[in-house]
């Protein structure tokens, strides 16, 4: 078994080194940006407490020493989040696609398959170590992404809710394994690495579009009307707004509310006494539930990809 693992890594040594270096870079960058954001935010809060009041009609900043670096960190964090989103895609495609395709393309499959007790066992020995590396690397960037998502000043004392949906958490690892499994199956079908990589890229795009549509449909079906008080903050995935008659609980649309209240709405758009503003949203506390749905969808793709790859390897001509 140890020999099989060593062989699996030796076959993809260069890709593994490059990709793991990139994973390390993304993780360290995300954690570093999160840490510096917190440090600068502390300094900015201290500065704002001692600053004079804002001047009307001018673009002013009482704390330029912290504003500019915080804005820079915010821009950099966007790059780090992109890195977290792309990590499972790049790892999955570049490590999953060549698992079978390279053996077929370089015509070493007949020898490798005849030397192993069974083709399925050969595939298992080649795939498990690589999938393990993908899962571990993606968990690392997922955790770093989660820390980064909680770092911005606007998340203080709050919840990031559904922000950075695909750029944090353990579901990043499920994405990586699913893309690798799908890539492995495509590589086994096509039997050539680069064309399989291109097809895998298209399939990954289609997969993300499909899951986005399903996620959106699930969230829309889970929307609930949440009444909010004046200046009260709500977090969650917001799909619309309206008003509620408190006594009867009757819900009014925005248009009905504007027609009914007219000038009685205050500056922030809040209705007169007896009515409340309502947001139709999926509250942040349900983030975990939808993350599980998302992981289940990608997990299904992973299982299907592995089963398909195994079936093809057992049946195809080498």
């Amino acid at each position: 078994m140890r020999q099989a693992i060593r062989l699996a890594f030796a076959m993809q040594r260069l890709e593994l080194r490059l990709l793991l270096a990139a994973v390390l870079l993304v993780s360290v960058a995300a954690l570093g940006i999160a840490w510096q954001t917190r440090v600068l935010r502390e300094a900015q809060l201290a500065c704002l407490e001692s600053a004079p009041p804002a001047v009307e009609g001018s673009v002013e900043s009482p704390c330029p020493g912290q504003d500019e670096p915080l804005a820079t960190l915010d821009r950099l964090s966007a790059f780090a989040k992109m890195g977290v989103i792309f990590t499972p895609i790049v790892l999955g495609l570049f490590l999953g696609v060549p698992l079978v395709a390279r053996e077929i393309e370089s015509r070493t499959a007949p020898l490798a398959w005849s030397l192993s007790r069974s083709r399925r066992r050969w595939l298992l020995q080649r795939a498990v170590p690589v999938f393990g590396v993908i899962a571990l690397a993606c968990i690392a960037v997922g955790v770093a992404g989660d820390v980064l998502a909680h770092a911005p000043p606007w998340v203080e004392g709050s919840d990031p809710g559904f922000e950075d949906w695909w750029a944090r958490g353990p579901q990043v690892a499920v994405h990586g394994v699913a893309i690798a499994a799908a890539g492995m199956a495509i590589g086994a079908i096509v039997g050539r690495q680069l064309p399989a990589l291109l097809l895998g890229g298209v399939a990954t795009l289609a997969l993300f579009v499909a899951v986005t549509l399903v996620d959106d449909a699930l969230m829309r079906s889970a929307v609930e009307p949440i009444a909010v008080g004046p200046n009260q903050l709500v977090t969650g995935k917001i799909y619309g707004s309206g008003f509620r008659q408190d006594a009867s609980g009757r819900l009014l649309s925005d248009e009905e509310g504007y027609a009914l209240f007219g000038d009685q709405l205050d500056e922030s758009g809040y209705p007169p006494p007896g009515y409340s503003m309502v947001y139709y949203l999926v509250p942040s506390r349900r983030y975990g539930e939808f993350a599980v749905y998302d992981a289940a969808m990608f997990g299904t793709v992973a299982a299907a990809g592995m089963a398909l790859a195994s079936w093809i390897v057992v049946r195809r001509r080498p």
Partner: protein
Amino acid sequence: MQRWEVIAVVTGTAALLGASLFVTQQLRDLAAAYPRCLDPTTVTAGCDAYHRAVGRLDMPASLLLQVSWAAPFGTGLVLGVPLVAREIEHRTASLAWTLSRSRVRWLVGRAAFVVLVTVALLAAVAITSELLAAAYAPARHLDSDFTWYGRRGVLLVVRGLVVLGLGISIGAVVGRALPALLVAVFGTVLLFTGISLAMDRWNAAEATARPYGQGESDALALGARIELTDGEVVGDAYLASLENIVIDADGSVYSRFDPDSGLPDRSSLVGRYRELMLPGERYPQVVARESAVGIGAAVLLLLAAGAIVRHRRPGA
């Protein structure tokens, strides 16, 4: 040898061209139906329907111009990287190089085909992206306008050739297609970041500092400067060294508040905020300059690929 890659690139390009021409035609039909509504700087009665219809095409048009920007990178990498790498990886390089009169001659024969395919496909993308941009902003004169710079026109072809040269060179060094593709992606990011920074510096040296908020929309924005009260011009990073910053509507920069009035302390005037811009009429010159730099880089990279193929061992 590259049938799959050529089919993939041609299919992708055809899809991009089809979508671009479709959106272009829709925008042109709208412009023909509402000729009075094309100037976005004026409010004309009866133009609501036109603005709503154009608004619906905003997203696809922007997305297609973004894909046009990415097309040279995808085409260059997919066609360039496996050209030599696959021969080495499959161990057919030794036979192919022995059968040819010289290795460089072999490379020229192979590279000429992909260069032709790249130029033909990207020229088509360059033309359709210009047509789309012209239909998207009918009131602008895009031949003297930096809007969507690098997402339309001849720069797409030049960038594709640079990436192709880089891909062939890296493929020849690494000798395996997939790892070479990874390295080439990193290399492309580094190379184009370098070219972009160098071009920005070159352009900034010729740019003019415009008063705050008075730059034209067709100009190339190259950052900000502060013109200090003693006439010295410094970068906007200077602002971070100030204790407080107040920038008035006319672009005057102050470093202190008056604690009594809460207004800027007029005696603390630091200087004037200036925006560094290159006017739209310089667009052809800047494009020609970047094209010359790109063609030079592509030629150097292809020469490097020739040198690598000539000297390397044919095994991976």
